[in-house]
C-alpha cells in the first residue's frame, strides 16, 4: 500500500532522510519508531504530499506523491504530530468543514458525521466548541477528521503524545478498530511499548534510514542479530562492567545491584566465548541468560547495532 524507495530529503546540510526504503502492506498497522530527529515526521510529511523529496520515490496506493499529489490526498488521512483546531467552531461544524473540503455531498454528510463521532466516542460532544475539548478528545476528533473521506491509508504522526493513560488506551482501541475497517495505518511514536500492542509490523528508523523492519514478534525476538543478556555475578560487578564494555559485540551495558544487562551481537558460539572469558577472569557467575526483549529493548539493540556498524 505504501512503497518508499531510496527516499532522500535534505534541509541545508542536514540529511533528514538518507535513501529510506520502506514497504507497508495493505491492511496492516505499521509502527514507525525511532529517536527524535530520526526522520519519521519528514517521511510522513512526504507521504502526505506536504513536502517534496530530493530524491527517490514514494507511492501510496500506487500513486506517486510528487506526480499525483491530489490522488494521494484522496486516499490518505493525515494527522500531524502537532495540530491545532479552529476557534469558534462546533464539533459538527469542524467535521462538516473537512467533509466539504473533500467534496463530500451535503446530503450524506450529516449521517456520516454521526457515525464518525460515534466511532471516536464523541457523540455527546456534537454541539461543543472544538477549542474547549480536552486534548484526548481533540486527538480523537482529529482521527474522525482523518476518516471523513473514507481513506485507504491513515498516516498518524505521534497520535498518542501528550495523552494521559486513559486517553491513550481509548486511542489504541480506536486504532485497533481501524484494522477491522481494513485501513492501512502508518503510525509513529516515540513511546515504544504502546506501538507493540497495536502494530502488526514495526520499522525502526535512525538517522534517516530504516535499520530494521518486520513483524513485531520478529523484531522483539531474541537471537535475531542482537540479543539481550543478563549476567549476574557474586562480586566485582563494577570491574565486570568495565570488562564487558571492552569486549567487541557488546553495547548498552546497564548495571544494577546484582548484575548487568547488555546487548550482545553474535552467534551462540561467540556468546559462549564471552561467558568463558568472564569465568576465566575469575568472576563467580550466578546467571548468564538471554532475556526476551520488549520493543523498547529491541529498539535499543537495533539502534546500538547500527551505531557499531557505522563506526
Amino acid at each position: 500500500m505504501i512503497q518508499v524507495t531510496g527516499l532522500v530529503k535534505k534541509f541545508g546540510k542536514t540529511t533528514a532522510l538518507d535513501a529510506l526504503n520502506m514497504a507497508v502492506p495493505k491492511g496492516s498497522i505499521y509502527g514507525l519508531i525511532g529517536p527524535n530527529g530520526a526522520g519519521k515526521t519528514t517521511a510522513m510529511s512526504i507521504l502526505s504530499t506536504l513536502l517534496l523529496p530530493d530524491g527517490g520515490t514514494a507511492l501510496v496506493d500506487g500513486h506517486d506523491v510528487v506526480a499525483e499529489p491530489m490522488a494521494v490526498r484522496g486516499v490518505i488521512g493525515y494527522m500531524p504530530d502537532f495540530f491545532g483546531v479552529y476557534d469558534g467552531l462546533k464539533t459538527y461544524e469542524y467535521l462538516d468543514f473537512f467533509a466539504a473540503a473533500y467534496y463530500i455531498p451535503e446530503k450524506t454528510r450529516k449521517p456520516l458525521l454521526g457515525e464518525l463521532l460515534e466511532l471516536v466516542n464523541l457523540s455527546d460532544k456534537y454541539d461543543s466548541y472544538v477549542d474547549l475539548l480536552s486534548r484526548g478528545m481533540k486527538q480523537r476528533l482529529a482521527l474522525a477528521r482523518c476518516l471523513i473521506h473514507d481513506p485507504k491509508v491513515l498516516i498518524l504522526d505521534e497520535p498518542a503524545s501528550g495523552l494521559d493513560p486513559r486517553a491513550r488506551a481509548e486511542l489504541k482501541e480506536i486504532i485497533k478498530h481501524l484494522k477491522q475497517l481494513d485501513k492501512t495505518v502508518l503510525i509513529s511514536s516515540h513511546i515504544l511499548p504502546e506501538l507493540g500492542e497495536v502494530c502488526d509490523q514495526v520499522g525502526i528508523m535512525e538517522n534517516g534510514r530504516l535499520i530494521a523492519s518486520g513483524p513485531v514478534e520478529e523484531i522483539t525476538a531474541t537471537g535475531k542479530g542482537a540479543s539481550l543478556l543478563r549476567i549476574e555475578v557474586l562480586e566485582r560487578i563494577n570491574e565486570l562492567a568495565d570488562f564487558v564494555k571492552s569486549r567487541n559485540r557488546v553495547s548498552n551495558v546497564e548495571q544494577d545491584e546484582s548484575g548487568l544487562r547488555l546487548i550482545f551481537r553474535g552467534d551462540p558460539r561467540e556468546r559462549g566465548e564471552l561467558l568463558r572469558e568472564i569465568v576465566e577472569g575469575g568472576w563467580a557467575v550466578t546467571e548468564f541468560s538471554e532475556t526476551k526483549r520488549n520493543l523498547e529493548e529491541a529498539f535499543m539493540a537495533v539502534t546500538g547495532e547500527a551505531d557499531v556498524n557505522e563506526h
Partner: protein
Amino acid sequence: MSINPVLLKELRQRFRNIKSPLLIALYLLVIGALVLGFIYLLWRHMPGYYRPDSSRGIFILLSMAQLGLIGFVTPGLTSGAISGERERQTLNVLLTTKLSTGGIVVSKMLSSISFIVLLVVATLPLYNIVFLYGGIAPSQVLGVFGFYMVTIYLFAALGVACSTYFKRTGVSTVTTYGLVFALGVGTVLLSGFIIEVTRGPFPTPPPLIALLLMDINPVMVMLQVLGESSVGMERDIWLPYWSIYLIFYLTVGTLLLFWSGRKLNPSRARGTKFRV
C-alpha cells in the same frame, strides 16, 4: 455553485466572534467622532449659516479618514490569513485535503475583504450628513466607494501574499504595513524626488515615471476622485487618471493572489514549509 468551505468557515468564525461587532463599533466611533468634531468646529462660530462648501469639506474629510482607516485595518485583517493558520498548526491538515491552494488563498482573502467592505458600508449613514446639506453628487459617493473597493483589493492581496511568504504573522504584518505605507506615502515622495532631480532651467512636463507613481498613489487619486483636480499634474497620458490606478491595483492584486496560491502549494514550493 457551492461556497468554498474555507470561505464559509471563515465567515462563520469571523461573524461569531465578539471582536467583529466591537471592531465595527470602534470603526464607526472613530469616523463618526471625526466628522461630528469637524462639524462642531465649523458651526461653533457661525451657528445657523449654511455653506455648501462646508458640506464638501465634510465629505472630503470623511472620505480621507475612511481611506486612512482602510489602510490601517486591511493589513491587520489580512496579514495573518495564511501565517495564522501556520501558527495555529492548522495549515498542514488543510493542505492535505482536496482543496486547491489557490482556493484557500482566495477564500481567506474574500472573507477578510467581506468584513472590510462591511466596515465601509456601515459608514454609509454617516454620508447622510453630507447629503443633508447638499453640494455632493451621489455619483461622487459611488466613485469613492468604487475607489475603496479597488484599494482594498490590492491592500488585502498584499497582506495575503506576505502571510503566505513569511512564516510568522508579526513579520508579515510589519511588511504589509510597510508596503501600504510605500504606496500611500513613498510613491509621492519618490515622484517628487524624480521631478526635482529632472527639473531643467525651462519648464518641462514631469517625467512619465513620476506621473505613473502619482497615479498609483491612493491619496492623490482619491483627491482627484473627490474633484480636487488641482492636485493632479499636467499629463500627456491619454488614459484617464483613474484607469492607471484601476489597472495597476487589479493586475498586481491578482498576480499576488496567483503567486500566493503557487507558493502555498507544497507540490511546487520546495522547502517553504520550514522557512523561519
